[in-house]
């Protein structure tokens, strides 16, 4: 295994070096970097041209320029651009922004995409599956920049306008309730009657909820309150226990419920601490949540149920924490919305300039700026994860060992989680890793549409000025990510599949 990793690393380094050569040579060919200087009046022209030539090494052969660049990079210096600004400094800011932009979107797209793909495969050929397939194809065929612009125009502007008078029209209530009802109805397994019941009750519940929210103008000053938090926590406990092992087992259920209870009590007790916490406090609380719920699962599960009680409990704990977190953030919404002139969803840039507020308010500021680009990115990358997952699951479901699992008398849940999911997700893991590698390079479009000054601006600056330095900086990150994640994908695959791991 170690030899395999070492060899893979060696190959990757050479591949990456070779590709830097290609990109460097191409980027010296795109445009004459002296074009602007040539336009200058006679006196200034020579000096300006000489200065730029000197700075960019234009008098040296390309090969020499490449090796100079390479020698600098090895020491951590990315050189200066045509104006003499440090590229390293520019890259730092740009990279932070891009990372901020893509992290949430990528995680969301992967989680939702895989979940939808799994469900779609398990319900193959149902209306749900066909709807998911169709929607995935549409998303897959959307031009990112087009959707992004439309989202900006309609979602952001219209949503902000609507917030001024947050009542929901009956047509909207009906439409959303109907969609939610259809989704619930098609998720339920069973005969026609139980499906219709699910459809009916979900539609009605959603409609009532929306009408209440509309009547109380909840969206103007949202929040969950202790009762909703407690209900969600208990619901989470029941849901995650069902997911992990089924409700007929008492110890895991008890562990999850106890965790939920602790969470609710903690939410009330921690009130003052959560008023305006530091980021570190929040992270610490999250870790503490995992530790406590894990311990609850461990002790209440006992020797027989530990394997199911611990995950059920931890999932419940994290979920409850997330609900409390959301509640806090929602409570700050009214203040934040007021401070940005009632337009919380932003269409341009990464943050409101010169904005300062509590932890929750600056959190909301980031959310407001990330909402649209994230939505656009998720819409587009969701589709491919869903399709990958569905295909992979279907392939595994055809395997003989799945039949063996059923013949052993395993429950359907055990067959799916221990055989189908476990095997089906191995190829998905590698595909996801390959995909993550290409995201930095692909985010250029999103950045351009939503006016983020990030990695893409380095690229465009370089192309506009015929300057290889910013382009190479962009490539070091974007191409480096591809090479690294390709390598990671191979290694992870070898690690997950014992047939390769042990040979």
């Amino acid at each position: 295994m170690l030899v395999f990793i070492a060899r893979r690393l060696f190959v990757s380094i050479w591949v990456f070096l070779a590709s830097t050569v290609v990109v460097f040579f191409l980027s010296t060919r795109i445009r004459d970097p002296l074009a602007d200087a040539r336009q200058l009046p006679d006196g200034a022209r020579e000096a300006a041209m000489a200065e730029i030539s000197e700075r960019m090494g234009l008098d040296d052969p390309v090969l020499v320029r490449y090796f100079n660049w390479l020698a600098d990079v090895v020491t951590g210096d990315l050189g200066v651009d045509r104006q003499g600004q440090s590229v390293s400094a520019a890259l730092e800011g740009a990279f932070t922004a891009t990372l901020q932009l893509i992290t949430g979107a990528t995680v969301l797209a992967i989680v939702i995409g895989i979940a939808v793909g799994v469900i779609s495969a398990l319900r193959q050929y149902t209306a749900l599956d066909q709807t998911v397939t169709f929607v995935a194809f549409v998303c897959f065929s959307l031009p990112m920049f087009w959707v992004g612009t439309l989202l900006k125009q309609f979602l952001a502007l219209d949503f902000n306008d609507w917030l001024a008078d947050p009542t929901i029209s009956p047509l909207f209530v009906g439409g959303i309730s109907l969609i939610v009802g259809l989704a619930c109805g098609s998720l339920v397994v069973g005969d026609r009657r139980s499906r219709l019941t699910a459809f009916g009750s979900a539609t009605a519940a959603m409609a009532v909820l929306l009408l209440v929210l509309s009547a109380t103008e909840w969206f103007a000053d949202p929040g969950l309150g202790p009762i909703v938090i407690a209900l969600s926590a208990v619901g989470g406990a029941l849901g995650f226990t069902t997911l992990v092992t089924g409700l007929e087992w008492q110890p895991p259920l008890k562990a999850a419920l106890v965790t939920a209870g602790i969470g609710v009590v903690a939410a009330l007790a921690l009130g003052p601490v959560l008023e305006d916490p530091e980021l570190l406090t929040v992270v610490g609380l999250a870790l503490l949540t995992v530790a406590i719920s894990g311990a609850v699962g461990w002790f209440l599960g006992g020797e027989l149920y530990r394997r199911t009680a611990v995950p059920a409990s931890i999932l419940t704990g994290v979920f409850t924490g997330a609900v409390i977190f959301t509640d806090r953030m929602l409570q700050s919404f009214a203040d934040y919305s007021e401070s940005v002139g009632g337009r919380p969803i932003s269409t341009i840039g990464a943050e409101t300039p010169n904005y300062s507020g509590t932890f929750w308010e600056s959190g909301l500021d980031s959310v407001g700026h990330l909402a649209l680009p994230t939505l656009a990115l998720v819409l587009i990358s969701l589709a491919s994860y869903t399709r990958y997952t569905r295909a992979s699951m279907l392939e595994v479901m055809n395997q003989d060992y799945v039949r063996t699992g059923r013949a052993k008398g395993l429950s359907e849940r055990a067959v799916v989680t221990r055989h189908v999911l476990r095997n089906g997700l191995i190829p998905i893991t590698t595909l996801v890793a390959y995909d993550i590698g290409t995201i930095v390079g692909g985010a250029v479009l999103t950045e351009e549409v939503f006016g983020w000054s990030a990695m893409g601006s380095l690229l465009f600056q370089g192309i506009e000025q015929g300057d290889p330095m910013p382009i190479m900086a962009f490539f070091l990150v974007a191409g480096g990510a591809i090479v690294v994640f390709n390598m990671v994908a191979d290694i992870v695959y070898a690690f997950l599949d014992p047939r390769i791991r042990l040979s």
Partner: protein
Amino acid sequence: MTRNAESGAPENELNAAHGMSVVARSQSQLVRRRFFRHRGALAGMVLFGLVVILAVTSIGAGPIPGWWDKDPTTTGSVVGEGRPTLSVLPGFLGGGGVHLGEHPFGQDNVGRDYFALTMRGAQVSLLIAVIVGVVATLVGTVVGALAGYFRGWTESVLMRITDVVIAVPTLLLAGLIGVIVAGRGVVLFAFFLGLCMWTQIARLVRGEVLSLREKEYVEAARSVGTSARRIIFKHILPNTVGIIIVSATLTIATAVLTESALSFLNLGVRPPDTSLGRLITDYRTALSVRPWLFYWPGAFIIAIALSVNFIGDGLRDAFDPRQTRVRD
């Protein structure tokens, strides 16, 4: 999307029983039959056909005249704020009747007919996509087949080259080349774009060839002294035709989106040429004033990419039904 009953074969026994009734059908007949039963693929075929016919016949191509009387480049007076005159709602439903009108897709700010302009853009986008598909498929197939068949050094070198191309983000590689060849026409641009997009196919073909070359009939051909070229072209490639066709199709869909993205970033098609992506860039600021200038090219991009993706899905199902069918 319509396959249901046929999927229920639990094991060899039933397959054998079922096979008996279809034994007379050849492989290509089976593929065709499965393809035409795929509702999504059929709809995709129809939609794609319509777009192509509309784009080619309306304003004509090269010397061939089209049936639409307006030219994409002629400016003129802007009529009625340049709103689209296309109407599809019949009069008795309260619409303006079914007619194209003077400017079905409206006019831009200098009075150019936007229908003609969109058709021109669609032609260019389709042309680029097809060229990319052909170039990428050819290069990918050759590289993959050589690497898979000869193994050893050939394989190492070819696959490392593939890795190098993969390491460069498509938008960066194609963007740089797009700037370098700017102004030398869309065909050259498309050709180079194709040279950026063959890596997927090469990897797929290589994998397939690797497994095929171990098959008994290839061994047999080798043992009687058949030349490598003959083995590759007569024995191996015909059996990879399925995945080649499928990935060529999907490459075309990706190419439409990549081309439009590059043009949007000013790295692809440039004036005086136009394409669907170019149109969106040119008129993106018009969204709040003349939204139709933004909608039409986008709708055509989606129509082309969606229909080609559906065709690809249908082809995949037709060539490899196992992948998407569950027996239980």
